[in-house]
């Protein structure tokens, strides 16, 4: 974006923010409170709160809280709605400010759905937000999955603008950005590696999750620190009414979730644990392969009063694995995330909601890979201590102002070695304690206003000011954020957004290794922060009383200070990683089509993305632009779930995407080297990423059968059998390609390695 336009946007935003206090205070009635599930008292996030008469509304925030200010009147009707729940209509009398707790009842079954006009969430067309998708937990639980493990990230990969990585991995790429450009937060704590089992499953246990929100553009200013997306995951708080237990047994793991009140309606707990047991069977079948993982979520909360609420959430996940595959590929890893979040929600009066958090997270990855005669060992340790406070003020019907600050103290200690496997296999090991630690400070301040100028026009605008200091580098930025919405009619709107983002932690990707071999680094005097500028324009249209949401979004994103390893970099223990990195720029643009059916027996969505993502580095590819390693031109995802009857639900998903680019030599050069160890033939590469793996496509299906039963004819419980097939037609999707010489013809041969054929699964779930 030209500097002049950027300056103008910044000036306009500053003027608007300066004028905010002058326009916001007028005598009105404020209705605020929490929206909760009636049976568990679990808060409902992003529930819709509408005043139909005034055609104004809001949604509950990520803590289930809402506040809406309306002109004083004798009576006002407020309609609360939430996907999968029966709507609640509340009549408010008088002019007094009111604090409510709204309890909503889940629909027993969508076959008996009650259709109430205007009760369905219409944020898609009514809010000045774009590129934001709330992923229903119900969808995550219904879609077919690998080996019966419900997976948040696998579902995320089916959304428009989101692309999966390699076969079987749960990492995702958003709008042409690298993996590290996604900030994944669990109860506000950063999760650096959200995967289990070589990335085949995500580390999040669905039974412990309340909400999942993906933001891929039009970032409100409370979010920052990554260029491409924010995945905001909130844990459940625990049932405040009754003790509940649910769990499941799959092919490779089992899980159990317990929740209940500590003090009824005042405090509760939830503990959820998952552990694999495939290692017990692998011990009998293979000595070289082992898988073991576990994750544990726990949370307690305590309501000090209606205005104060304390939370403590903990998460720990760990993986230990070894794997042997084709092309003498070996892989051994031990990695884990631990996070702790202490949170305090407080209401100042009834117009200002605050959330203050102290967060700790600890991540380590130890990885040993060998392929052919070479091996690599890498270690990354990250420890973050984070404090943040956020305020939401609703001074008038038209404004929702958010402001806050955060501070993070990062400690990173990366190290890597790559070498030929010694004859006696005495490989060099990395001692994490001996690695040089990189300390850094990251802080941010922000202010954001969601301003409803009229029924047809609204603007969400703000500024975020991030600051970073570490390893000899100090950086401060001013990031403008603007999203506007113009309604063409009640069901159609046009939206546009501009956001600037900066990022101070970087995952340096390896373009050649077949398995993840990435290293995290913080910015320094040599490693400048990554920066992106993104503009997006979208048309949003809902049909059949918001039963069907559709959208078309186009985006254009530029990225500065992208990082890659220099050509020929061989990392040794004493390598200064700052010196083996090269910097360039990236550009990504595309168009995303999305149609989603929210209600009825058939639910699901279809998304198609046509996109292009390029990078350009002075030291790479002769300085010319090349497709980034995560450039997939076409991406089609279909996800559907059909309730056949009260017992049976059928689900399927289908994905198709253009193959991943990789680099092939174009020419062969003879060099007369006399009796060198080398064979005198060299590669003439003409372009980086000049070839593509074959297209990826896969169909998964599943069928689930639910039934209410009684244990010992006495204790009622719900049980569910889920039968599924991953990759139904067993397509050999490409994982990577390597080159060999045909011993007979002496011609080069390309060999493709594929990972996951058809995989059946069966799992059993229960709920008391």
């Amino acid at each position, binding site marked *: 974006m030209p500097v002049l336009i950027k300056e103008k946007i910044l000036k306009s935003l500053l003027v608007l923010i300066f004028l905010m206090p002058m326009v916001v205070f007028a005598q009105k009635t404020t209705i605020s409170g929490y929206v909760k599930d009636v049976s568990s008292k679990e808060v409902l996030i992003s529930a819709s709160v509408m005043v139909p008469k005034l055609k104004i509304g809001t949604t509950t925030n990520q803590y289930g809280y809402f506040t809406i200010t309306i002109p004083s009147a004798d009576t006002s009707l407020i309609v609360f709605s939430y996907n999968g729940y029966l709507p609640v209509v509340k009549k408010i009398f008088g002019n007094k400010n009111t604090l409510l707790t709204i309890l909503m009842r889940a629909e027993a079954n969508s076959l008996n759905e009650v259709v109430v006009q205007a009760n369905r969430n219409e944020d898609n067309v009514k809010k000045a937000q774009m590129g934001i998708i709330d992923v229903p937990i119900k969808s995550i639980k219904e879609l077919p999955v690998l080996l019966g493990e419900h997976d948040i990230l696998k579902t995320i990969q089916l959304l428009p603008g989101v692309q999966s990585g390699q076969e079987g991995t749960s990492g995702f790429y958003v709008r042409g950005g690298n993996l590290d450009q996604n900030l994944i937060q669990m109860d506000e704590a950063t999760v650096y590696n959200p995967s289990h089992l070589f990335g085949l499953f995500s580390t999040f246990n669905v039974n412990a999750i309340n909400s999942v929100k993906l933001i891929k553009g039009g970032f409100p200013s409370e979010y920052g620190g990554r260029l491409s997306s924010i995945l905001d995951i909130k844990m459940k708080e625990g049932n405040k009414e009754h003790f509940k237990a649910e769990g499941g047994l799959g092919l490779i793991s089992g899980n159990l979730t317990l929740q209940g009140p500590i003090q009824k309606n005042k405090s509760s707990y939830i503990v959820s644990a998952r552990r694999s047991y495939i290692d017990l069977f692998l011990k009998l079948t293979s000595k070289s392969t082992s898988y073991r993982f576990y994750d544990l979520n726990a949370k307690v909360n305590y309501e000090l009063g209606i205005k104060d609420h304390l939370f403590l959430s903990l998460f720990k996940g760990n993986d230990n694995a070894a794997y042997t595959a084709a092309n003498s590929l070996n892989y051994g890893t031990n990695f884990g995330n631990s996070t702790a979040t202490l949170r305090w929600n407080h209401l100042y009066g009834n117009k200002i909601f605050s959330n203050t958090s102290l967060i700790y997270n600890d991540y380590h990855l130890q990885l040993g890979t060998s392929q052919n005669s070479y091996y690599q060992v890498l270690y990354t340790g990250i420890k973050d201590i984070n404090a943040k406070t956020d305020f939401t003020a609703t001074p008038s019907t038209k404004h929702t102002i958010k402001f806050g600050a955060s501070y993070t103290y990062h400690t990173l200690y990366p190290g890597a070695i790559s070498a030929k496997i010694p004859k006696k296999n005495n490989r060099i090991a990395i001692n994490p304690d001996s690695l040089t630690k990189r300390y850094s400070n990251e802080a941010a301040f922000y202010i954001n206003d969601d301003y409803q100028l009229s029924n047809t026009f609204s603007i969400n605008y703000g500024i975020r000011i991030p600051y970073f200091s570490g390893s000899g580098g100090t950086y401060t930025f001013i990031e403008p954020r603007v999203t506007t919405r113009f309604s063409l009619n009640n069901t159609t709107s046009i939206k546009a957004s501009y956001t600037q983002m900066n990022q101070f932690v970087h995952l340096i990707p390896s373009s050649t290794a077949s398995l993840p071999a990435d290293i995290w680094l913080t910015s320094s005097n040599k490693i400048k922060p990554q920066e992106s500028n993104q503009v997006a324009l979208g048309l949003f249209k809902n049909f059949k009383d918001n039963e069907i949401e559709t959208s078309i979004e186009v985006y254009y994103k530029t990225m500065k200070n992208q990082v890659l390893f220099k050509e020929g970099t061989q990392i040794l223990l004493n390598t200064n990683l700052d010196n083996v990195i090269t910097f360039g720029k990236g550009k990504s643009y595309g168009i995303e089509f999305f149609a989603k059916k929210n209600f009825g027996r058939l639910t699901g969505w279809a998304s198609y993305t046509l996109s292009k993502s390029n990078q350009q580095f002075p030291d790479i590819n002769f300085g010319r632009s090349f497709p980034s390693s995560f450039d997939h031109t076409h991406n089609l995802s279909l996800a559907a779930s059909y309730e056949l009857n009260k017992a049976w639900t059928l689900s399927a998903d289908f994905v198709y995407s253009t193959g991943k680019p990789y680099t092939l030599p174009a020419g062969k050069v003879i060099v007369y*080297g006399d009796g*060198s160890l080398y064979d005198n033939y060299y590669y003439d590469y003409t372009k980086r990423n000049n070839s593509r793996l074959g297209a990826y496509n896969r169909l998964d299906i599943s069928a689930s059968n639910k039934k209410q039963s009684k244990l010992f004819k006495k204790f009622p419980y719900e049980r569910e059998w889920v039968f599924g097939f991953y990759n139904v037609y067993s397509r050999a999707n490409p994982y990577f390609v390597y080159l060999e010489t045909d011993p007979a013809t002496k011609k080069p041969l390309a060999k493709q390695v594929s990972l996951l054929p058809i995989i059946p699964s069966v799992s059993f779930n229960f709920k008391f």
Partner: protein
Amino acid sequence: MKKTFIFFTIISVGFILACQKTISVAPPSYNNKVSIQGFIEPDSVPIVYFNETVPYFGEAIKKNQLIVRNAQITISSNTSSDVLNLDSVFDKIDCQYNYFYKGHQKIQSNQTYHLSILSGGKTYTASANTNLLAPTIDSVSYVANYNDIYGEHEGVVVYFKDVSSQTNFYRYEMKRSADTSTKKAEAKIVSACLGNDSVQVNEIGRAVFNDIGNEGKEIKIVIEPAYSHKKGTVGNIYIQSFDQNAYDFFSQLDRQKLAQYNPFIEPVFLQSGQFGTDAIGFFSAKKHSQPFQFVFPE
């Protein structure tokens, strides 16, 4: 229990075993270039290798089929001009002729020479100066185990003193004899042309070195021998000194091979050198040190 075990075994084995197959890939488009390697050394006649590059996914081709014939190659200085002619030498190990262009006049010291190649309507030019000095080898030893970026290997350890008056670029060379009992890069030499003969081979180190940070000091290099040896095998070791054009060229070849073998290293693109984008290669002066006779202790 038995059925459960079989079921889990099938699932886990299916999960573990990745499959691989040969696939056909669309060959990247490629415009053939030329490869030029020209060393000039005082008191020797110039030799220039002038070959064609070929598509990687093309037909298998012998290296002597790549020679570009009918090229007009001239090496000239202020005082001389030498037109090179196509020549060849029979390589008994590869059992084929190797072709190159060879001059007639010996190269002089402290002269600037200009290479001009006219071929296929294109002209390739470069210059080199023969004002190089060679270092003196002080000592040579042997280690059975050595670790460096190439991994664990045996090594010939060469100590030599850097020439302090210039920026230097070095490479190792050993002249020795080999026969069918000798292994090259751990593969036994198989040649129908060699019979029971032994031939002299020039063993060239794959790594190149510079004297940055070691100007005028003693330098130690450890070289993995290309050919197998026995106790008492004799070789004459040289240190070649050449200019930066040759260093840059051989350095990128070495880094590319490391990346080609080691899947954890980013691929290295061969950069255009002195001849522009249509040619890969170098034209450089070279100077050998005095030989140092070395006898392998094992």
